């Protein structure tokens, strides 16, 4: 498949940052900002994105950008939005909050819930690479079942992470906010359409963007897009959107037939130990199948 990326001579997240080669998060940020445009202010949580993009006195950001701490991007963005409203400067300006999975699923959950509940016109984006990558691949509530991380290592008596991934987008949607969506960098048109929809929506929105991490997932640096696509084609990650609450959830892309989860797992070193045990692969397949059935996705091909 050939993809044509829009003319990027007005890149708002510019080159020269220190993101790892093939980082899914950096690609996702560029895709979001291509839609958001220059009339955008970002409040960023602590994490890879902040560290890689702003080593003083350099910055990769061609838009106003603020980083305060790890858990409070949603609260900082709330303050920015309230100030712009009061000063009469909000019209035509997007206020975005960017956070990794740690700054969203775990330590940032309370501030996120508060922002959503209070109804701020803030668009929250979580770039999910399924572990604390900035601190060295520690387990997060976003880490999927079976993944080996430095604090949930696979070992003789451990399969790696023993809990399933926290359903963060569903939790956000349960706040009955106007718009919640999931996306990946592989389906960038779907992603950009959803970003546009979020920006065009008045009030709080939440987007969960699946962002492979070559360093943490131990895959080759040219595979982030392919792994993102496989995550969707296997049903490991489901593309959906919900306007105004979970009962309005709509799957936005359904593969005709799902690929076996093994194809997804085998591209990543973090699941290597799983592949040695067919019963574990089958267990994960079963978990994915059960979830996909709920979302009305077709069964695995073959």
């Amino acid at each position, binding site marked *: 498949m050939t993809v044509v990326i829009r003319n990027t001579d007005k890149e708002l997240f510019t080159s020269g940052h220190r993101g790892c080669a093939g980082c899914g998060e950096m690609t996702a940020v560029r895709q979001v900002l291509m839609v958001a445009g*220059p*009339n*955008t*202010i970002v*409040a960023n949580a602590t994490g890879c994105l*902040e*560290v890689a993009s*702003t*080593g*003083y*006195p350099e*910055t990769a*950001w*061609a*838009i*106003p*950008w*603020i*980083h*305060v*701490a790890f*858990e*409070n991007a*949603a*609260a*900082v*963005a*709330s*303050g*920015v*939005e*309230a*100030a*712009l*409203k*009061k*000063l009469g*400067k909000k019209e035509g*300006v997007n206020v975005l909050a960017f956070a990794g999975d740690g700054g969203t699923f775990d330590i940032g959950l*309370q*501030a996120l*819930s*508060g922002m959503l*509940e*209070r109804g701020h016109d803030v668009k929250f984006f979580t770039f999910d690479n399924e572990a604390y990558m900035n601190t060295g691949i520690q387990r997060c509530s976003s880490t999927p079942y079976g993944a080996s991380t430095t604090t949930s290592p696979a070992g003789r008596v451990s399969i790696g992470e023993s809990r399933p991934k926290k359903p963060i987008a569903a939790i956000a949607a349960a706040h009955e906010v106007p718009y919640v969506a999931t996306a990946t960098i592989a389906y960038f048109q779907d992603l950009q359409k959803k970003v546009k929809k979020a920006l065009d929506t008045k009030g709080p929105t939440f987007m969960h963007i699946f962002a492979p991490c070559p360093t943490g997932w131990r895959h080759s640096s040219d595979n982030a897009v392919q792994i993102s696509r496989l995550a969707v084609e296997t049903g490991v990650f489901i593309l959906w959107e919900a306007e105004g609450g979970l009962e309005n959830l709509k799957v936005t892309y359904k593969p005709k037939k799902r690929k076996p989860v093994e194809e997804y797992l085998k591209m990543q070193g973090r699941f290597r130990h799983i592949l040695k045990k067919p019963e574990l692969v089958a267990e994960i397949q079963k978990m994915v199948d059960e979830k996909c059935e709920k979302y009305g996705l077709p069964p695995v091909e073959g």
Partner: protein
Amino acid sequence: MEMKEIIRGNMATALAAKMARVDVVPAFPITPSTLFPEKISEYIANGELDAEMILVESEHSAISAAIGASAAGARVATATASQGLALMHEVLFIASAMRLPIVMAIGNRALSGPINIWADHSDTMAERDTGWMQFYAENNQEAFDLMLMAFRIAEDRRVLLPAMVGLDAFTLTHTMEPVDYPSQEEVDDFLPPYQPPYTLDVNRPMTFGSFATPESYMEFKWSHTRALEESPPVIDEIFEEYKKRFGREYKRVTGYMTEDADVIIVAMGSVSGTLREAVRQMRKDGIRVGAVKITTFRPFPFKEIVELCGGAKIVAIAERAISPGFAGPLFGEIAGAFINQPSRPLISDFIIGLGGRDVTLKDFREIASTALKEAEEGRVEPLVKWININPEEAPPGGE
């Protein structure tokens, strides 16, 4: 035109914030500061104040939203106390490092545990190193005046630092006292709209809060520290202007009968009035005692403390906080003020009124007589004395 109202301390700080025409108030309720957000909400509800209130889900988010709003160019105030201030801890450093002139009223209250809601300075003392200015009010008039002046000082381009205004839990926050206040026109003239040098502006993109390596981190800290160190003349200038405009005099440190005093008792906050009365009474009995009230704890008034207390035989510090394993925090600062002086008084530390325990005239008499005895003996032993403590009532520790 001066007006007068009989109001609680929290209402005085809320009134000052209203008259300062704050743009954004992010707040979370906590005893004894809750009346501040209540009052601000009421002003907004009645159309007396045009501001955005953010009813956040925690104090951590209150100060985080305050940073976002201030960075976007708004004048921002909030209020908290005790556990709420402690929950803000990590973010306080960032607010000051970003040089954002947020003003925060603190209902000075004890920290848990055990949980206690009464007057104590442990909460703000624990935040002394966060790079904020700290002012302490003696009464509700001071709470109003200091809160109003805090905006002017914080927003001054020569300063650009956030400020805390401390008022003792209940003794001030909830006690009705007469407060004089100027007209709105006079306040507007004293405090023009906030003109931030840098903001989050789509027409002038800037990066706030970048990552700093060992090559630049120290310069950030140096520049921030210098701003605090160089703020006293600006504070004095604004105190002076306030006096000219409104007739009330403020000093970073105020002495009372210190000139010929053998013993000088140093205190902060609401006990200062009791202390002056105790001094007056003791003077009648022929005791050569003086008092010093510290209004500005950060920046710390090293020079002024030495000038006021340098002639005494002994300085007795009466403080509402303790740094376990050391002494009271104020002891460290005052001892530091004297350390390089060729001659210096003895310095003795007294812990008073923790968790709202009443501080009386009798307590100050005891402090003065103990300190004078120490001066006579030429030694301070033990260094830290707890006033009004009942060791036999203390709960058991581990065996």
